């Protein structure tokens, strides 16, 4: 790297306060880090580590409640904290720029994308309108958007998520800023799109010599893109080093724990399960769409001819990107939606066409753990009330149900005495444990886990996965595990089914599919998995 050059960004001893009554006095405390020209510095940390606050401080976007109380932020030698609002406006866009996690909300939905890129030029330069359009087209070509002449005049909702993120990057880079701050820019994207965006950021940054401060929680992304890594925990920098140093020779315990928590891509050896079949779907189809009286509405075939078998004691993963139909299959099996055609055999009953009145008796056999632990528990009811609700529905005396709930809380690693607390008093991981306890209280045969760890930090994720694997063994559960994350699938699934656009394109033992994917889509998914060459998961969940 350009050692001789002055750093693009130097943060020295930055401290940002939190409002009174927060769980700690400072959002970030005594942070020092440096970004050199042409360098990608990854700031890694779990939620609440202060990485986003650091980015906001650099951009001068700190909310009033979070005042910077000490330290300096030097952007090419100029202190951003001391800059006037007018000077800050000048700096943003020209010397520093930022891209965000969610490109749909970061773009103005009622403005053509070309105008949104052009806005930066309009504010900071005195180019004519024709020149501006030329510059916009040039930068759109540079971020590899197809047909820039056509895309320049479309609205954000007309293009895909990956294209929207490219537009964001184009708007950020059009004036060649010295510093680009990327706040989790690929977290909301599918894995194949993520790989393309990461490649683009690296390519542009190399060509233009931009310094990039890349905020992420994903060590796979770090392994893909970082030159140097800054690890943050609870508002402090705990370790700084080159990518190789951090990934291969982490010094700090926290970093070691984080890296060890990242699931590996190689499935551990597992013995094939031969228990009785708990779930079998036969040619399951679900079509969404409006049936108009005269005109045929738009029809989406969310699932087509899906055949999946799950045995007792076995975890079967459905892997796919957004829109692949994996959640539709889960919702059909749980009969939250009615399948259009096909059969769902649970035990020896086909529940696919059962009316709601006859379905109730079968509901207890299938339970579901949802993705978002903040919304899957009723915020107005105590967790105890949530756990005993199901058993009481099926005639278990309340006292007995409560006793069971206490034992289940202990099983999932929570104090039985916290049954009378409300969900907001628990963290995300604890809530997911409660959701698992609620599902287990029904003594189901089949547990559907719909992205159960996607909303959790990596260290918590490992614990919840371990818990799921543990209860699967203990109760000989059949588990249908829906995920977009290949690493998670590799660690927990006996068999996996890969779905693309509603169709299962490949199905088989996890070990075989990971070793030798046959379908080209599966291969593309594996190719795109970030950090696939790095070794992760030295402390994985055992089979």
């Amino acid at each position, binding site marked *: 790297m350009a050692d001789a050059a002055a750093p693009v960004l130097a943060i020295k001893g930055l401290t940002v306060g939190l409002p009174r009554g927060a769980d700690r006095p400072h959002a970030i405390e005594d942070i020092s880090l440096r970004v050199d020209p042409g360098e990608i510095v990854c700031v890694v940390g779990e939620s609440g580590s202060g990485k986003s606050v650091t980015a906001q401080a650099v951009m001068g976007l700190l909310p009033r409640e979070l005042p910077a109380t000490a330290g300096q932020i030097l952007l090419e030698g100029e202190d951003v904290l001391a800059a006037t609002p007018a000077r800050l406006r000048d700096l943003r866009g020209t010397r520093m720029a930022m891209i965000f996690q969610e490109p749909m909300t970061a773009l103005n939905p009622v403005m053509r994308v070309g105008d949104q890129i052009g806005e930066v030029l309009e504010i900071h330069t005195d180019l004519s309108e024709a020149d501006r359009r030329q510059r916009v087209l040039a930068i759109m070509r540079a971020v590899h958007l197809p047909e820039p002449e056509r895309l320049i005049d479309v609205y954000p909702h007309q293009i895909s998520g990956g294209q929207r993120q490219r537009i964001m990057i184009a708007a950020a880079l059009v004036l060649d800023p010295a510093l680009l701050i990327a706040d989790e820019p690929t977290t909301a994207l599918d894995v194949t799109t993520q790989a393309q965006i990461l490649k683009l950021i690296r390519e542009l940054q190399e060509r233009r010599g931009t310094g990039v401060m890349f905020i992420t929680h994903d060590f796979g992304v770090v392994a893909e893109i970082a030159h140097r890594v800054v690890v943050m925990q609870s508002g402090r920098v705990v370790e700084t080093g080159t990518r190789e140093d951090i990934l291969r020779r982490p010094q700090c315990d926290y970093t070691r724990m984080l890296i060890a928590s990242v699931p590996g891509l190689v499935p551990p050896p597992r013995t094939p399960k031969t228990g009785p079949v708990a779930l079998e779907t036969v040619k399951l189809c679900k079509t969404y769409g409006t049936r108009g009286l005269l005109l045929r509405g738009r029809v989406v075939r969310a699932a087509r001819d899906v055949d999946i078998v799950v045995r007792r004691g076995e975890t079967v993963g459905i892997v796919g990107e957004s829109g692949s139909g994996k959640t539709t299959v889960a919702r059909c099996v749980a009969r939250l939606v009615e399948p259009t055609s096909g059969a769902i055999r649970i035990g020896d009953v086909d529940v696919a066409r059962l009316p709601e009145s006859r379905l109730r008796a079968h*509901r207890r056999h299938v339970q579901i753990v949802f993705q978002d632990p903040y919304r899957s528990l009723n915020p107005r009811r105590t967790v105890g009330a949530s756990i005993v609700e199901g058993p009481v529905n099926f005639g278990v005396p309340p006292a007995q149900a409560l006793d069971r709930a206490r034992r289940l809380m202990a099983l999932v690693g929570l104090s039985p005495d916290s049954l009378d607390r409300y969900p907001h008093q628990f963290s995300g991981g604890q809530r997911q444990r409660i959701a698992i306890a609620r599902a287990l209280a029904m003594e189901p045969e089949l547990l559907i886990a719909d992205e159960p760890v996607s909303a959790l930090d990596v260290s918590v994720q490992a614990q919840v996965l371990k818990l799921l694997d543990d209860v699967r063994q203990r109760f000989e559960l059949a588990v249908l595990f829906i995920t977009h994350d290949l690493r998670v699938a590799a660690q927990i699934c006996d068999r996996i089914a890969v779905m693309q656009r509603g169709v299962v394109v490949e199905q088989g033992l996890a070990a075989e599919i990971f070793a030798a994917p046959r379908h080209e889509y599966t291969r593309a998914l594996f190719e795109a998995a970030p950090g696939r060459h790095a070794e992760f998961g030295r402390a994985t969940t055992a089979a």
Partner: protein
Amino acid sequence: MSIEALPAEIAEGPPTRRQAGTVRMLARNPSVVIGATIVAFLAIIGLLAPMLGTIDPAEINPVFRNKMPGAERTIRNEDGTKSTFVHRFGTDSLGRDIYSRVVYGARVSLVIGVTVAALSVAIGLVIGLVAGYVRWLDGIIMRFMDGLMAIPAILLAMGVVSLSRAGLLAVVVAIVIPEIPRVVRLVRAIVLSIREEPYVEAAITVGTPTPTLLVRHVLPNTVAPLIVQGTFICASAILIEAILSFLGIGIPPETPTWGNIMAEGRALFRIYPHNIFYPGVCLAFAVLAINMLGDGLRDTLDPRFAKRV
């Protein structure tokens, strides 16, 4: 392995966080405090009407017609003694004491406001829950509600009152009917968003019957918005009652209501403006206070408006 075989040991406890109580947050909101104080004041006046130096509000005194505020009248009591009564707000064209009528009128106005709010919220809540949850009924119910909303509230109320003998009950029914669609729409919108929440779906998968599901998981989410909507309905009901009385189709004219008093005073407004002034001021204050209360409640109870750190 069964759950009963599990050990009931104690693991680490979760951390606790505290939230500011709703009551304390309400007490900090100035419009809630001011609105509630005025409403409480009017309610006390209505309740204690006989003890506030009033005389029979329906008593007609042809000798003492159209007196200005502050006029004094000497009353000869049955035991022969004399006492003086001051018409603080004057008298109307039939010689009735306007002060007494305004004080007693608070009763009718507040009773109508509260009854209409409670009834329309209760009826609208049930219809809204059904419309939001039973998909095939939704279209039918909502088109009917759209039809109701298309007719102006006053016109609908006039129609309903004309169907029966005018009285408190008829007026309440007449004001409740046009308010129902507004509540139904609100409740239905909330139900439609809440039914997609994972915790509702989780309740479905543990086999909770639909009526229980609605009461236990969906209904509590409608309480805060309905309290707010209820206050607005209350204010508008008081206003509509006054309008109906003013138009002469509401509560019979001998019953003192703010609208009736104003209707009575309309003919002689230019010479004796106090006939309309006092009930008008009371009406304005009552409606303003209830609206302030509603605004404040919305700001505190509705998380979209509340700014919580």
